[in-house]
């Protein structure tokens, strides 16, 4: 919504791509819904709602594609750094919470996701990550008694 306005109207690939994704999802729902069984109006099958919603989605996506066919919005400048850092950070937490325990997993989550903000020094990242990992475990593991273990042993 806060995109900068370009000078000329042009075909916007992002907007169209999103419309296509929406339309394809709708089509998938219709197809799957018919597999589940559409039923009749008197006795609706489990596929009735998916088909209806999917069809609505297709129509709306077509409308969006038409509405945004030429948009003055420029393609967004994606903040790659935070996007990747947070994806890897949360991914690391998910991967290691059961393997290595809560403290290492939290440390990795915080440390990696803080790389997303380039203005922060490595020292701050290290200290914050260690601090949140330990305090977080004390808070949730000890005080709240969540069944999570601190380390892998």
């Amino acid at each position: 919504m806060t995109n900068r306005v370009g000078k000329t109207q042009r075909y916007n690939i992002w907007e169209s791509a999103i419309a296509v994704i929406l339309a394809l999802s709708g089509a998938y729902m219709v197809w799957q819904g018919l597999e589940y069984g559409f039923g009749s109006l008197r006795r609706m099958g489990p596929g009735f709602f998916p088909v209806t919603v999917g069809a609505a989605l297709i129509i709306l996506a077509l409308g969006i594609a038409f509405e945004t066919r030429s948009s003055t919005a420029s393609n967004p400048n994606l903040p790659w750094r935070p996007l990747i850092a947070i994806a890897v950070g949360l991914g690391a937490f998910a991967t290691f919470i059961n393997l290595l325990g809560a403290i290492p997993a939290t440390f990795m989550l915080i440390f990696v996701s803080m790389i997303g903000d380039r203005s922060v020094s490595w020292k701050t990242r290290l200290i914050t990550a260690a601090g949140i990992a330990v305090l977080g475990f004390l808070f949730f593991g000890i005080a709240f008694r969540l069944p999570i273990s601190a380390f892998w042993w």
Partner: protein
Amino acid sequence: MDILTDIALGFQRAIAPDALLFCFIGVTIGTFVGVLPGVGALAAVSLCLPFTYYLDPTVALIMLAGIFYGAQYGGSIASILLNVPGTVTAAVTALDGNPMTKQGRAGIALFTAMISSFIGGSIAIVLMMLFTPMLAQFALRFSSAEYFMIMLLGLIAASTIAPGSRLKSFAMMAAGLAIGLVGSDLNTGTMRFTFDRIELTDGISLVSIAMGLFGVAEILSSIGGDRPEKIDVGKIRLKSMIPSRAELGKIIKPILRGTFTGAGIGALPGSGAVVATFMAYAIEKKVAKDPSRFGNGAIEGVAAPEAANNASVQTAFIPTLSLGIPGDALMAFMLGAMLIHGIVPGPRFIIEQPVIFWGLVVSFWIGNLMLLVLNLPLIGIWVRMLSIPYHILYPAMLFFIAIGVYSVHYQVFDIYMVLAFGFVGFFMNKFGYPAAPLLLGFILGPLMEEHFKRALLMSRGQFDIFWERPISAVFLAIVAMLLAYSLFSIVRRQKNSKNRPEA
């Protein structure tokens, strides 16, 4: 009178030590997130929801609700002092509140905001006590046809009112309905859209969606953004906050106007605190003798919107509790939270569980009182909270999100889900797809499907049922009107798009 015994019953529950404690915790968290820009009330409530599973349902709801209205109070602090609204509604308060700060009247602006919120909230709570049971009584006559129609009305209204492209809002509503379908079908047990993952058998969890769309997405958009640097608002003493008699006289009428505007709009389906707040501000500007004062520190411009937003937050509970129909995304989340706690809001809720209902309502008032009494002297502390750097705040939030969503089922899958919804939400923000209709659709979808099936079962497959029953017919007519209006505005938007920048 009957209602008095009910209120007494509510008081008994709400002043129990556990209720008081969690009410306090709730409003404190609420103020905290309201003060902080970049942390919304919805993100905060979804962060806290997993940790309320172990609490008594009444206490859990008292706390979660406290976060909502607490955030309204907190939001005004940051917007008045620093012109950084912590919540959307607070943006309106900033229009006149911040100029007041620049004129050295910060204390009075803050006091006005607090007292207006309190009065607005208190009146709205009384309205809630009167109207919720009445509406519930009326709704006892509803059959599935009416329920389906009113839910459809709520969805359509919310998508129509959302700013930006109508088509995009409607598409998000449909996407929400689609996501709500995931899991096993209630009637037949057929697995729908589970992609053979056991984790999806019970559907996608509300917590993952809300945390992703409103938590992670918000973080992704905020990192590296502009943040207020140094904060120096000077000392605000309690003494400087007390307005003069003349000023008090000036704000009473705006507070009342704001309250009733807010209360009325808040109770309507599809329109939340945001609409109410903007409306109240617009009305003040209309009735003012000298509209040019607005934007330059008019005290009415703080009083009316603050009263309106708090009143609307309270009355928004009327349809949610009496009909089970949430008006906006926040209430949709509340409804979802209640369902998780095994409470089904609706006409029977008030009759069958009076202690929960009245306890909750009375706790609103206690919470508002706590906010008023605590916030005025504690303003200094809240202001200091603003100096927490974002690079400490967002990792901490990510940790709360990760551990919170993990602790629901101890499933790693849910963490990936949050991440996925975070990315989806980020792109939705970027391209002007609103998240609120999606959440609303997700929560109402399963209920709508159920009622739709039941209604058509009753009518033996005839659609007549939706227009032959008078109440349902009225809802249907409103839906049709809203759709016609949307269609009209879509077409008009197309015509104008040539000379208007499109987001």
